[in-house]
C-alpha cells in the first residue's frame, strides 16, 4: 500500500504539533506540506517537521496532490479552509470547533455531503483509552440508563496565553465557551445517544486580567429523555497548576455510576524553586491524537470504516456553543435545535 500524503491547512492551533508528531509514528502516512496565512509560521512548522511550506493553499494542493488535509488554523478560518479542501476532493480532518458560527457550520456540512470525502472532526476525546473504555461499559449496560453527566474540561491559563489568537475574538470566535463546550457536548451526545433540547449558560467575571473574551462559564444542558448534563470548560486553573488542564466526567446511571479522570495517569515532578519552580505532571498513558489520526487513516484506506465524529457531529457541537452564547447574553435557557 502506498503512503497517504498529508498536508496542513493552517497550523495556528497548538494541536497541530501533536498531530504532526502522530503522523511521524504512522507508516501509512507522510507529512509533505504545510500552508498557513502567516508564511513565517508555515516556514517554522515545515522546518520542524520536514514539510514544504506554502503561502498559497491552491498551490500546495496542485503541487503536492495530498490525500488528506488537517485543518488546524485559528477557529474563524476553519470554514473557508475546510470548504476549499473539500472542493478539491481531498479528505479532511478538521480541528474543533469546526466553525464559530452556525451559518459556517451549515456551509461545511453541505460541502462535506457534496464532496463525498472522509470528513472527521477532531473530537479527540472519542479516541482516548479511558473515555473509550467507558463507551464500551455504557454500551454493555454496565450502569443502566444514563441519567446525568457532570463534565469538566478546564485549562491552565498558560495553555491559553501561549497563543495570542485564542483571546482575539475575531480569530477564536470567543473564549472558554467556544474552546471547550464542543468537547464536552460531543462526548455527552456520544454517550447518551441523545441531543440537547435546552441549554443555559452563565459567564463569570474574568479571572485572567486584560483579555477580551470570557474565561469562565457554567453550562447546564438538558438532553432529550431528561438527561441532565453540566458543562464546565473554564480557563480557571492558575499557572501553578501542574499540567495543561483536565478532562473529567461523573456519569450517573440507573444502575451505578462511573467517574472518569482521563488524564489521571501521570508521573508527578516537583522542582526546587531555584531550578525551575513549581511542579509538573507528566502524562504517560493513551495518546488520543495518535489514535484519532490512525482512525482517520483507516477511514481513508477502508471506505467501509466510517469516521467516529463527522461534520454533523461538529455541527451539533457548534450549535450547542452558539446556543450557550445566546443563553449567556439573554439570560434564559435556549431551546435546540436552533
Amino acid at each position, binding site marked *: 500500500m502506498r503512503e497517504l500524503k498529508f498536508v496542513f491547512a493552517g497550523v495556528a492551533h497548538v494541536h497541530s504539533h501533536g498531530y504532526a508528531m502522530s503522523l511521524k509514528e504512522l507508516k501509512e502516512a507522510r507529512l509533505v506540506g504545510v500552508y498557513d496565512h502567516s508564511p513565517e509560521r508555515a516556514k517554522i512548522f515545515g522546518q520542524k517537521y520536514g514539510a514544504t511550506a506554502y503561502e498559497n493553499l491552491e498551490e500546495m494542493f496542485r503541487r503536492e496532490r495530498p490525500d488528506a488535509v488537517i485543518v488546524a488554523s485559528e477557529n474563524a478560518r476553519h470554514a473557508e479552509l475546510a470548504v476549499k479542501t473539500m472542493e478539491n476532493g481531498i479528505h479532511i480532518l478538521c480541528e474543533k470547533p469546526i466553525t464559530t458560527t452556525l451559518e459556517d457550520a451549515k456551509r461545511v456540512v453541505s460541502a462535506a455531503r457534496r464532496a463525498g470525502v472522509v470528513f472527521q472532526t477532531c473530537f479527540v476525546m472519542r479516541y482516548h483509552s479511558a473515555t*473509550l473504555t467507558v463507551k464500551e461499559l455504557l454500551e454493555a449496560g454496565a450502569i443502566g440508563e444514563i441519567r446525568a453527566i457532570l463534565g469538566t474540561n478546564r485549562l491552565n491559563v498558560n495553555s491559553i496565553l501561549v497563543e495570542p489568537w485564542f483571546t482575539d475574538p475575531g480569530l477564536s470566535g470567543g473564549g472558554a465557551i467556544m474552546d471547550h463546550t464542543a468537547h464536552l457536548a460531543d462526548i455527552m451526545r456520544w454517550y447518551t445517544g441523545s441531543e440537547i433540547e435546552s441549554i443555559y449558560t452563565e459567564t463569570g467575571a474574568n479571572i485572567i486580567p486584560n483579555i477580551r473574551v470570557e474565561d469562565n462559564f457554567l453550562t447546564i444542558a438538558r438532553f432529550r429523555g431528561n438527561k441532565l448534563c453540566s458543562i464546565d470548560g473554564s480557563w480557571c486553573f492558575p499557572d501553578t497548576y501542574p499540567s495543561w488542564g483536565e478532562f473529567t466526567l461523573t456519569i450517573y446511571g440507573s444502575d451505578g455510576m462511573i467517574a472518569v479522570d482521563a488524564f489521571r495517569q501521570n508521573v508527578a*515532578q*516537583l522542582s526546587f524553586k531555584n531550578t525551575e519552580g513549581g511542579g509538573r505532571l507528566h502524562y504517560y498513558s493513551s495518546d488520543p491524537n495518535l489514535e484519532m489520526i490512525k482512525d482517520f487513516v483507516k477511514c481513508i484506506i477502508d471506505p467501509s470504516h466510517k469516521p467516529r465524529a463527522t461534520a454533523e457531529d461538529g455541527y451539533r457541537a457548534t450549535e450547542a456553543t452558539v446556543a450557550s452564547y445566546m443563553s449567556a447574553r439573554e439570560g434564559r435557557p435556549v431551546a435546540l435545535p436552533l
Partner: protein
Amino acid sequence: MSNKTLNVAVIGAGFMGETHLASWMLVQGAKPVAVVDIVAERARALASRYNIEAYDDIEKVLRRPDIDAVDICTPTETHVVQIERAVEAGKHVLVEKPLALDMKSGERAASIAEKGGVKVMVAHVLRYFSEYRKAKELVDNGALGEVRQVRSSRRGSPPRWTDWYLDEKRSGGVSLDLVIHDIDFLRWCLEDEAERVYAVESRSGENGSAADHAFILLKFKRGVIAQAEASWAQPPTAPFTMILEMFGTRGMLKYDNRENVPVVMTKNAGVSTFSPDRLPLSPTKMPFPIDPYYREIEDFARCILEDREPPVLVSDAIKSLKVCLAAKESARRGEPVSL
C-alpha cells in the same frame, strides 16, 4: 525472516502464560500456535479459549519445525533447562523473570544464550510500563538533576492461586520474585550497579515458607541510595500497589498507581476500577498498543523479525538476579553484602 510469520508456542498455561498469549494474539507478523503445560487439562483449557493447539510436553513443540520461538512462562526453577533445550532446538526464547533461582544456573543460561544463534530475552516488563519509562525519561533529561535517593514499593496479596510462589525454594519469595522488577528498573534507569545491599525479610507463617515481606536497601556505585519494598502481605481486598519516588538535586518525582486510576465504576455490588492502558478489553475497538505486556512481546517479535539484539539480554538479567540473591544472603546473615 522478514516476510514470514513468526510462529510461537507459549510454555506454561498459568496467569502469566495467558497474559502473554493475549498479547501475542495482537502482534502483527506473529502467531501463537500452541500452548504447553505439564498439566494437560490446563493446556487444553487455555488453548481452546484461544483456538490454538495444546501440548503437555515442551519437547513436542521443540520438535515442530514450524515453531520459531517459545515464550517460557513456567515456574522459575524450570526456566534454565527449558532455555537450554529451546536454544539447542534452534528456537528463539522469551523467558519470564526471574531468570533463575541461583547464580550458577543464571550464568549457565547466559553462556547458552551467548552462543546459541537465536534471540534470548528476559521479560523484565517494567521497562515497558509507560510510567516507569516516563520516570527514566525525566531522569535522563536531567529534570531531577543528580539523583540522590530512590524509594520503591511493590505490594500484592499472597499469590495463592498457585502453589509455587509461596514455596521459598521454588520462587525465592518476595526478595527475588517481586523485587527483581524494581532492581532491574533501577539498574536500567540509573545506568549504574549496586555495590552494597542490606535486606530484612519477614515470614508471616500463613504464606508458606516464602518471605512475604522485605525491605531492601541498596547503595549504587555512583552514590545513589535506594530502598525497595516488596510484599505479599497485603490483604486480598487491597489493590496491587506500585510506588516510585525519586529525589534529586533539582527536584523529585512521584508515582503511585493507586492514585492513577482514570476510570472508577461504583455499583451496589462494589467498586471496579479500569486502567485502560492495561486492558485490551476489545482489541477491535481499542487497539491501544500501550499495554506493557503487549509492548514487550511486540518488541521481542520485532527483534526476531528485524534481526535486532533484544533489549534485555540474559547477561544483563543475571546482574539483577545477583542483586536479589545478595539481598537474600544479607537477610540470612543479618549484615550488608558487597557486590
